[in-house]
């Protein structure tokens, strides 16, 4: 009898060691970072500014100045420091990092303009194209904000996280992935112009 008791005593710790403990918040963050998924959305946005010109005789002419920008939004799950994981008992909240957004405007040139009538270029661009820079920037930013790209990226990332957390050890917990809706103001702060 004593022998069996001893054998059981030896086996019990072994059996208990096989049962996995629920992961801590740090472990969850590390687990996410081990899967280097990057979500990227790249856009080329082109918008036109319409410039109207009236000559001395009152004839109206128009020119279109095309403006173009490359816009890239990226959400990187590898950046552990930016992923916030909170855990209370069996509940886990994961907040995704803010996307990195870069915006690059193409150089403007008066030769890019389209003339809707036979008027010499000098009539239109006596002040140079710099005068349209701010106007163009505002138009392009408006187009970007309308697309709500950060939300789309966060949703894609959340889908992947749901798969990652479905793995055996992490399955025991209940997860909430927090997707942040960025206001126009917040988004403008995130945009880095190159």
């Amino acid at each position: 009898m004593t022998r069996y008791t001893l054998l059981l005593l030896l086996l019990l710790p072994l059996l208990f060691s096989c049962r996995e403990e629920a992961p801590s918040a740090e472990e969850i963050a590390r687990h996410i970072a081990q899967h280097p998924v990057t979500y990227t959305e790249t856009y080329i946005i082109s918008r036109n500014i319409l410039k109207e010109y009236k000559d001395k005789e009152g004839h109206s002419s128009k020119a279109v100045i095309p403006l173009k920008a490359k816009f890239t939004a990226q959400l990187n799950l590898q950046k552990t420091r930016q992923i916030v994981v909170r855990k209370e008992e069996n509940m886990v909240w994961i907040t995704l990092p803010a996307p990195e957004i870069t915006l690059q405007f193409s150089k403007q040139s008066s030769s890019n303009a389209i003339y809707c009538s036979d008027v010499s270029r000098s009539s239109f661009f006596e002040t140079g194209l710099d005068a349209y820079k701010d106007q163009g920037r505002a138009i392009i930013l408006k187009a970007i904000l309308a697309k709500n790209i950060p939300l789309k990226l966060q949703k894609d990332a959340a889908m992947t996280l749901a798969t990652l957390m479905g793995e055996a050890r992490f399955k025991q917990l209940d997860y909430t992935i927090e997707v942040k809706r960025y206001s126009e103001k917040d988004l403008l702060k995130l945009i880095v112009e190159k």
Partner: protein
Amino acid sequence: MRRMQENKIDHPNTWKDRYETLKLFIADHFLALIKVAIVLMCFLMFLAILTGNIKSPSSRKDASSSLLDPHKAPPIVKKLQGMTQINGLIEDREVVVSQFKMLNNTPKPVSIHMQVTGTLAIGVNLQKRTRKWIELVADTLILHLPGIEILTPDPECLDREKEKTLIQSGSWNGNELSAIRQRGVCVLKRQSIAEDSCFVIAEREVRKQLLSLIKSYGYKYGKVLFSGTLQERPLIAHYPEGAIPNDYNFYDNSAGEHMIFYKNGTILSYSDQIPYEHIYNLAEFTTLSFPANTNLHLLKAEGKGYILKINNPNANIKMPETQQYINYVHSDKEMHKQLKKMMQSLSQKLFYNIPCNIIETDTNGEVVIDYSKL
């Protein structure tokens, strides 16, 4: 056993006695305990292999051949099989389409300049993949994918609500406006293909996304290959049949031609109806002066890339006849040199910035860009 019997403690009441008993038990059953431990470990490993946490060498070998087996396919295959397309780049553009027409009772042509807005997704259509689109070679997962293309179907790419007429003279009927819209789609495509090396950017982005995905599924290395070389991909968007009205017959051909009109460094006002992106760059390419109404004509050569032809009909702008080409190229060495330079710049601007060789032909004053040597 004998030793245990000799030192038998009948009633191990104290902790010391229990310790002594354990010591004796271990000493006597040492081999048996090791056997039990080995059996237990084997059992646990078997369980781990069974649940998929550890892969045996044989199963790793099998994985390569069973990647596409519906029952054994790994998660990444299932994930990719569930996807229909991957967007590399999204083009959101406003373009201006201009159209001119001559009316019988007016000396000057009437015109309409319409701004159309459209969105094109450029990427890879995963539905076009071949049977053996995925393979595992050692530690590398290789994806064989179809080439990069414009994914948005033609009718869906234009946003009719944002359509705007900038300037208009004369009256334009529904059919004419519909033709202009169709040409708007072409202009959008043309810009996407020709400007900014959009296909190259899209390819780079799709590759980046897929490699990131491959790594996230635990594969050490990944490789993404696209079918079709740059030469095989469409360099110039073709106008669909009926998109160009018959009275502008210089567009009316199906050979993938592209017309560029150029006059002493400025744009010919009557030729505004061609996509402007190819015009405005032209001044950057050359300082050459051409006689009035000289057209530069770029057309696709059969199997040889693109041919530049120079045409001076000294008349109205019409579809140039072959015999009307004037041999500028060989009449002046300096001009020949300049033209070659210009073609080099043109090809770099228009065709993905890929380097190309220019070879010369001695017929019809053509300069041929040879893509076959790339």
